[in-house]
């Protein structure tokens, strides 16, 4: 668990430092595609809600994490 936390903290730092390509806004036609968004799509909201109800794990996906309902 500690190694995973270290990896997740160090990874963005390394990625940022080593990212050799600052993509200019006019070059982002692929990055700006609607299926390339990094956040959860709105239509997935109901699925991620029932997954949080039916499983003990939740969170880190933009969905329910606890509170707001009489669920786990």
């Amino acid at each position, binding site marked *: 668990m500690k190694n995973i*936390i270290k990896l997740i903290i160090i*990874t963005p730092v390394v990625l940022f430092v080593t990212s050799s*390509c600052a993509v200019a806004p006019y070059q982002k036609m692929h*990055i700006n595609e609607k299926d390339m968004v990094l956040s959860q799509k709105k239509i997935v909201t109901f699925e991620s809600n029932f997954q949080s109800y039916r499983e003990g794990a939740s969170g880190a*996906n933009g969905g329910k994490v606890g509170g707001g*309902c009489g669920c786990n």
Partner: protein
Amino acid sequence: MRLIAIIVVFLIPILTYSQSEYRMKGNDKAIDVNFLASYYQQEGNNSAVEGGIGTEHLIDGASMLIVNIPIDSAKSLQITVGADAYTSASTDMIDARMSSASVQDTRVYGNLGFTQKDLGKGLTYGGRVGFSNEFDYTSINGGLNFAKEWNQGNTELSFQAQAFIDQWRPYFPIELRRTVTIPTNKRSSYNLSAVFSQVLNKQMQIAISAEAIYMTGLLSTPFHRVYFSDMNTLDIERLPQSRLKIPLSVQFNYFISDRFILRSYYRYYEDDFGIKAHTASLELPIKINNSISISPFFRYHTQEGSIYFAPYKTHLSTEQYYTSDFDLSTLKSKHMGVAFGYYPVYGLAHANLLNRQMSFKSIEFRTAYYMRNTGLNSFIGSVNLQFQF
């Protein structure tokens, strides 16, 4: 300590980076409206209401309206309202004297949010308030969010804090109603999340998310039964009055070609109920043409169950905490389906409404089947209609 010092050294220049040439994109002028609806049906035989046995048949119909209103290029309002209506054969068994007709209930909820951008500095901040109500539960919530982007918008760091102040109106199993007591009927949840996203090149981007969720109060469900192996008696589910959850996730998206995109996601989860879980998913949007895409997807989840879980008639009456809710057990699940999207460039239809031009922009359908190795299976179908004014 050394690691923290290294991270701080890297973060200081990132957070103070001045973007004199790059200006963050402002809000679009159009009002965005998304109408979503779903149908969910599940079957299983491990109802927590009956102590880990009995039907889990449930049908749920949900709808939600999300409206994003730009006030100007920097300010916007977000309004979300929704309602879920469900019938549940297991909830019907809270009071076994009732008729065989399944219990029905409706949950209604709403959120109001405000967002402000500083386009020159690449900052976004805002707040929201919300509520939710169902027959035995009421919630009031509030939250704040902050984001900073730099490196010509290729890098973003965002934070969000939320608090939920909730209250049960407990409804106990009929045979325990006169004798059972609970320490409190209140529940509070506090969430803090951080997301770091980075454009790696013209075709790839990644996001790393970390959250901490702390819950306190009545964390068990008052109408869940637990039967004991050493005594011919039962109690309601009992769980600790605090819980700390830590989910960590990585999302990686790759524009493979003009026809294929890969969306991938991995999450590790751990909490102090003893649950450890791994979740991974893959989605492959396939562009049929400029307007139509089809996306098959697959999700796999595995979890090590809570230390407080045991099946029907396994717990001892001397234990302090106990649950027979299979949602907290050791389990594996698979979730697979397909999504279909139709996004014509000029929209599906246009009309004049309240002196504004309304456009029906796009429609999405999504269906999925869920299988859990405990015997629970479910189907869900969702639709999203997007409009602009």
